[in-house]
């Protein structure tokens, strides 16, 4: 792979059999997601893994690949859901137009938050993204006539969708799963393209050494802003999927606890790996499901497990697994 300017971007190791299979990471991920509803105990859980997987995957672009620890990703997850719901319920927009519109508007929101927050570095960035996302939360709380305030947004049920002249009953959980999986596949293809592009190499360079990237002539500030917007766009698509799935948008989706949950998921699964976000979302949700069977206080266990991961397994489940079978960085 060569950069347009002619320089070599990634040194390709000689491809082994395993490496050749992993060249098709999008296809492989889609196959796994396609059989997921039959591996998990319930279809509802599978849909949630799909939705949170997409949200966390978008976040991984920012945290895993660019090294920017944002605590405000919930703003875009929530924005996608709210914009979809408002467009369908209030303005009667067809659902697929609503999704496109919601992603577009959420990307604009990401641009605004990104312009302010990417001016800061390091720990400042985490604090500022958290504060700005809380601002979005309070705005949604106050603008109750649009968002439903504390009660959440209701009244935009999508029960039937037409696909190429084909009527699909969206209330059927299996149909719903595969329609939403199409979105997830689109998001994965998009993310894979970004990562394989020269821009993908630039953001990794920024993570590895910001000063050196700048010295090489890359516009670090602009790249950070662009990756912030791309990340917001992908996560907002997860929000659209949630809105279509639940037919309500709870206000809590915008709270910083949701941002924190996204951070937890990416770390549990493995930051900076392509499929890690889905593994992370699945582990978190299964953990929540299993523990809440015998105690309502599941958060204490999830929090403790997360602390242990930070201390002893910072690469997460998937990242550690990939390390163990010796898959190189460029192939994840």
């Amino acid at each position, binding site marked *: 792979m060569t950069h347009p300017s002619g320089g070599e971007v990634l040194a390709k190791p000689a491809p082994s059999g395993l490496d050749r299979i992993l060249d098709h990471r999008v296809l492989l991920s889609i196959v796994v997601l396609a059989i997921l509803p039959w591996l998990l105990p319930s279809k509802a859980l599978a849909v949630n893994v799909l939705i949170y997987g997409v949200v966390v995957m978008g976040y991984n672009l920012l945290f895993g690949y660019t090294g920017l620890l944002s605590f405000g990703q919930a703003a875009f997850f929530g924005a996608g859901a709210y914009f979809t719901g408002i467009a369908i319920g209030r303005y009667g927009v067809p659902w697929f137009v609503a999704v496109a519109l919601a992603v577009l508007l959420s990307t604009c929101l990401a641009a605004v938050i990104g312009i302010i927050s990417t001016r800061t570095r390091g*720990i400042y960035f985490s*604090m500022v993204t*958290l*504060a700005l996302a*809380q601002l979005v939360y309070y705005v949604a709380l106050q603008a109750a006539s649009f968002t439903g305030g504390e009660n959440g947004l209701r009244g935009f049920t999508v029960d039937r969708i037409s696909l190429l002249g084909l009527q699909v009953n969206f209330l059927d959980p299996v149909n719903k799963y595969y329609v939403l999986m199409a979105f997830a596949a689109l998001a994965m293809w998009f993310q894979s393209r970004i990562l394989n592009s020269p821009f993908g190499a630039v953001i990794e360079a920024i993570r590895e050494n910001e000063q050196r990237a700048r010295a090489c002539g890359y516009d670090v500030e602009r790249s950070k802003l662009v990756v912030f917007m791309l990340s917001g766009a992908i996560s907002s698509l997860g929000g659209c999927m949630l809105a279509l799935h639940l037919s309500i948008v709870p206000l809590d989706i915008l709270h910083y606890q949701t941002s924190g949950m996204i951070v937890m998921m990416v770390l549990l699964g493995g930051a900076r790996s392509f499929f890690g976000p889905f593994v992370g979302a699945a582990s978190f949700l299964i953990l929540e499901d299993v523990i809440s069977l015998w105690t309502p*206080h599941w*958060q204490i266990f999830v929090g403790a497990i997360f602390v242990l991961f930070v201390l002893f397994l910072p690469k997460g489940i998937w990242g550690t697994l990939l390390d163990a079978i010796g898959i190189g960085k460029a192939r994840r």
Partner: protein
Amino acid sequence: MDLSLIIMQLLSGIALGAVLVITALGLTIVFGMLGVVNFAHGALFMIGAYAGLYLASLTGSFWWGLLLAPILIGAFGMLIEFVLIRRLYGRSIDDPLLLTFGLSYVLVEGVRIVFGSDGIPFPTPPQLIGVLDLGIGFFPRYRLFVIALVAVVLLALWLALEKTRIGLIVRAGARDPTIMQVLGVDIGRVWLAIFGLGVGLAALGGVLAGPMRSVNPEMGSLVLAEAFVVTVIGGLGSIVGAVVAGLMVGISISMVALFAPEMATIVMFALMAVVLLIRPQGLFGVRGRTA
């Protein structure tokens, strides 16, 4: 809208700001010394409020709660530093932040298990119930006490940092920990003490805020966002910045509450955004470290 009302609202803002100052100060001192942002700061603020309430009901006096809760929770903070955070020095700066975030989950849920999820009223101490006639209006005695106590704590902290030998070590350690180690100072012990101090200040903020807000397990999440806003506006690591920004935010909130109540929760974030656009390192921050 007459002038006396505005002055009374200003005083309310200062009382609100005083609690913010104490809380943000704990965050900023720990960052200035250890380079660690404690994401469990809000949860420890909340635990401070619960500890104050519990100790007050145990001893029958608010004053014991006010004195003992910050000390006990500060000691608990030292335990956290010693057992968990110490392992992460030398790793990515994100790691302590992630760890304390997970810890806040554990702490909040722990409080829910022990004290339940519902809010508990925190009675105002009998000596401070009621209002005081200031000539231009009546002002709650308790809020005046909060302003006075915070002023005393700030003065004591300033004296300790500027005039004592320990303060000298602390200030030098913030500048260059390696040189301090070369000079024979056990920097690990200094960091332990500073982390304890920071957590103790969060707990003090919690006890002081108790009678002004309701005490519930979720109270820490708003406080954390507030403390972040204050430290970002003031400049992370700057003590003067925390004091100025804390009062600024407190006064803005109560002033906006007077004229446009629905904007009160939003104003501090807007203030932060404006400051970041003009001075990304914060009002008293040093450029290069964070921005």
